[in-house]
C-alpha cells in the first residue's frame, strides 16, 4: 500500500483517525503519470474510512469521496489549510462518477460508513459534503432519513472546494457544470491508446505475415516491404480514431461519433494515398480506405464511453446502424486487400 500521505493520527471520541498530508510527494506525481497510461490503474486505491486534514473538531466539515487514489490526491490537495474530515467510500478504486453510475459510490455504502464509523459522535453537526457527480448513486433524501445527515452537493471539481466554502457552501453554475475541454480530452488519450495495446501488435503482425502472399506463392521480401507499410497504415487508422478524433471532437462535423471517426479516417487515408502508402493498384487503395475508415469509425464510437455528454439511448441508436456498417466495410476492405495481393506481381 502507498501510505506516505499519512502523517500521523488524531484521537477522537470514536477512536483514532489517521491524519493525511495535503501535499503531493514525488511518488504521487510519478504515479499520477503512470495511472494516466493505464498501468496498474485498476489497483490504485486508498483504504476506505475516515481521515483527518489538519486539526478538525466536532464542527468541521466532512468531505465524502471515493477510494481511487488519483481522486483522493486531488481532494486532499484541495483541502490544504482547511481543518476537515475526509470520508472515503469503498468504490473499489473507481472514480466518483463511474462508481456512482455502478452504485458503489451510493446511498447504501454512504449510510453504512456513516453508521459504522459513529460519525454522529465525531461531529455534532449533521452535514456531509458529497461531490455533485456522486449524485448519480446517492439519494440525498434517503441518506437524511436513515442517518440524520443532510447531503450537501459540492462542486464537480475538487479544485473548486475552497471557493465553494467561501461561497457559503453554494456551488455556482460553473462549479456544477461538466465541460469536456480539449486538455481534458487529451489527458484521456494515453489511456485510450493503452487499452488497445495487444491489438496494436497483433493485427499489424498478421498483416505483415499476409503481405508475403502473391500469385506465385509466398515471398518474405514482399512480407517485409509491404508488411511494414501495412502496419504503418493500421497505426494511422488507430491514431485517427483514438487520438485525433477525441482531440478535435467538437470541431469535426456530425454528431455521431461513428461519422466523426469515419471522416477523420478517410482524411488520413487520403493523406496516405497522396504519400503513395496505399499500394499501386486501385483495389488495394480502395481496400485501405475501407479498412482505415471502418477501424477509425469503430474506435471513435468507443470513445463515447469516455465522454461526459453521451447518453445510453443515443449511443444505442448510433450503434444500431454504425456497428454493422463498420464491420461490413472493414471486412470488405480485408477481402479486397487479400485479393489485391494476387493481382499485383
Amino acid at each position: 500500500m502507498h501510505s506516505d500521505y499519512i502523517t500521523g493520527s488524531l484521537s477522537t471520541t470514536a477512536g483514532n483517525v489517521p491524519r493525511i498530508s495535503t501535499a503531493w510527494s514525488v511518488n504521487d506525481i510519478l504515479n499520477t503519470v503512470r495511472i494516466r497510461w493505464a498501468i496498474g490503474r485498476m489497483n490504485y486505491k486508498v483504504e476506505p474510512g475516515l481521515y483527518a486534514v489538519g486539526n478538525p473538531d466536532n464542527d468541521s466539515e466532512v468531505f465524502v469521496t471515493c477510494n481511487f487514489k488519483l481522486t483522493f490526491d486531488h481532494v486532499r490537495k484541495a483541502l490544504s489549510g482547511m481543518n476537515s474530515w475526509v470520508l472515503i467510500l469503498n468504490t473499489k478504486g473507481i472514480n466518483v462518477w463511474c462508481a456512482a453510475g455502478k452504485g458503489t459510490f451510493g446511498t447504501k455504502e454512504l449510510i453504512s460508513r456513516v453508521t459504522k464509523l459513529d460519525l454522529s459522535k465525531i461531529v455534532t453537526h449533521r452535514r456531509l459534503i458529497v461531490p455533485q457527480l456522486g449524485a448519480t448513486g446517492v439519494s440525498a433524501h434517503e441518506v437524511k432519513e436513515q442517518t440524520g445527515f443532510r447531503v450537501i452537493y459540492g462542486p464537480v471539481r475538487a479544485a473548486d472546494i475552497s471557493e465553494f466554502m467561501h461561497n457559503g457552501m453554494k456551488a455556482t453554475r460553473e462549479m456544477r457544470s461538466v465541460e469536456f475541454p480539449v486538455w481534458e480530452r487529451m489527458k484521456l488519450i494515453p489511456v485510450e491508446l493503452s487499452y488497445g495495446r495487444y491489438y496494436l501488435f497483433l493485427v499489424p503482425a498478421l498483416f505483415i505475415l499476409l503481405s508475403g502472399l502473391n500469385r506465385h506463392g509466398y515471398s518474405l521480401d514482399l512480407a517485409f516491404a509491404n508488411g511494414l507499410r501495412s502496419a504503418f497504415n493500421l497505426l494511422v487508422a488507430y491514431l485517427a480514431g483514438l487520438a485525433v478524433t477525441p482531440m478535435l471532437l467538437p470541431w469535426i462535423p456530425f454528431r455521431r461519433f461513428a461519422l466523426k471517426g469515419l471522416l477523420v479516417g478517410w482524411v488520413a487515408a487520403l493523406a496516405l494515398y497522396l504519400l503513395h502508402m496505399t499500394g499501386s493498384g486501385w483495389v488495394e487503395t480502395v481496400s485501405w480506405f475501407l479498412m482505415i475508415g471502418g477501424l477509425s469509425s469503430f474506435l471513435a464510437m468507443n470513445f463515447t464511453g469516455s465522454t461526459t455528454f453521451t447518453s445510453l439511448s443515443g449511443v444505442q441508436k448510433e450503434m444500431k446502424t454504425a456497428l454493422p456498417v463498420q464491420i461490413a466495410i472493414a471486412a470488405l476492405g480485408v477481402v479486397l486487400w487479400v485479393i489485391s495481393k494476387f493481382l499485383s506481381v
Partner: protein
Amino acid sequence: MNGLVYLSNVVTLELDQAKCNGCLMCTIVCPHNVFEIVGKKAVIMKRDLCMECGACDKNCREHAISVRSGVGCAAGIINGILRGTEPSCDCSSSGNCC
C-alpha cells in the same frame, strides 16, 4: 458547451410537473443544467443535453422525474450484448474501464 452536443430527441428523461414541489434538487445535481425552475416548478429546458446519468431521478423525493439511466458507452453496450446483460462498463477482466 462548444459543440459538444450528442444526438437530438433520443433521451428517456421524463418530468411529471404535477408532482414537482420546486425543491431545486434536480437543478443542483444535473451536470448539464438541463433543468430550470420556472414559477416554482422544474422545467426541462435543454433535453438534448441530458446524458441519462440518473442523478435527478435518484434525488427527486417526489418521484417526479424518471429516466432510464446507464452508461453511454459503445464498449459497454457491446459488452452487454456479448454477455447477455445490461450495458455495463464493468470490464474488470480486461482492465478496460472508465
